[in-house]
């Protein structure tokens, strides 16, 4: 069955404490090549049947209104897995 992937990231201007903590751990482990880490979310929505324009519209609405909060996050991509 087809899968639609939605990726959400904290807005660039919003402090991302989780990413910052991961970046700190990497530095402690000796991986000093990285100046920063930002941590986001990936959602995989399994579709029962073929992906139609209506389904893509619904995913866009869900991504904007439920999967992300526009105050603190951006939807960075909506793609079909393997497409």
């Amino acid at each position, binding site marked *: 069955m087809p899968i639609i992937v939605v990726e959400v990231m904290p807005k660039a201007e919003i*402090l991302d*404490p*989780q990413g910052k903590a991961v970046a700190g751990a990497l530095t402690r482990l000796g991986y000093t090549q990285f100046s920063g880490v930002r941590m986001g979310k990936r959602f995989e929505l399994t579709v029962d049947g073929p992906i139609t324009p209506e389904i893509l519209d619904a995913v866009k609405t869900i991504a904007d209104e439920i999967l992300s909060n526009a105050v*603190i996050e951006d939807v960075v991509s909506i793609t079909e897995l393997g497409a």
Partner: protein
Amino acid sequence: MRIGVITFPGSLDERDAQRAVRLAGATPVALWHGDHDLQKVDAIVLPGGFSYGDYLRAGSIASHAPIMAEVIDAANKGVPVLGICNGFQMLAEARLVPGAHTRNAHQHFIRRDQHLRVENNTTAWTSNFEQGQEIIIPLKNADGRYVADAETIKRIEGNGQVTFRYAELNPNGSMNDIAGVSNERGNVVGLMPHPEHATEPGFGPNTAVAMRSGLDGLKFFTSVIQSTLLANA
């Protein structure tokens, strides 16, 4: 005077909130997230906890719970609504108050007796406080950092919608030290600290007078009782 307290899956402090309502002199009414019935209550409390495990974002799934349709409708009609901690996060996710919450700036879960300054004593839930009064209310959360875009911050500061500010220190990196905000009308108030935990001698926050003696939380509930009586007079 009947004040409803809604229980969501993962709510933790609804019984404390019900007890606080009783101690303040009103009748608590237990409401259920899955119902579409506010049982004609005069005011509503969204309690603290970790509704739906705080999955997705703190308060976000609860903000879409069945009863929230009625809560949003009631809030828009002027019914007083108080969101405490997870309840504040729900109010923000439901867009009943501006802004959003992220993880505390230093990642830690924080539990402390927090000093707050009352920045607006004209809301339904703060009328019994003095303007600028400092109070002590227990704080306990992981996702308490209040954020909004610069334009929103400017607007709510100008409108007097910043209801409480952290005093002494900012525990979580909240913008402008904001601890609580209201909607424009002032009937909906959300804050991260827990007033229901500062309502009974021996069980409240530590104060300069004695350990566990803090009762500042009672005034949230006496305020809404008084403002409701005045509105219905």
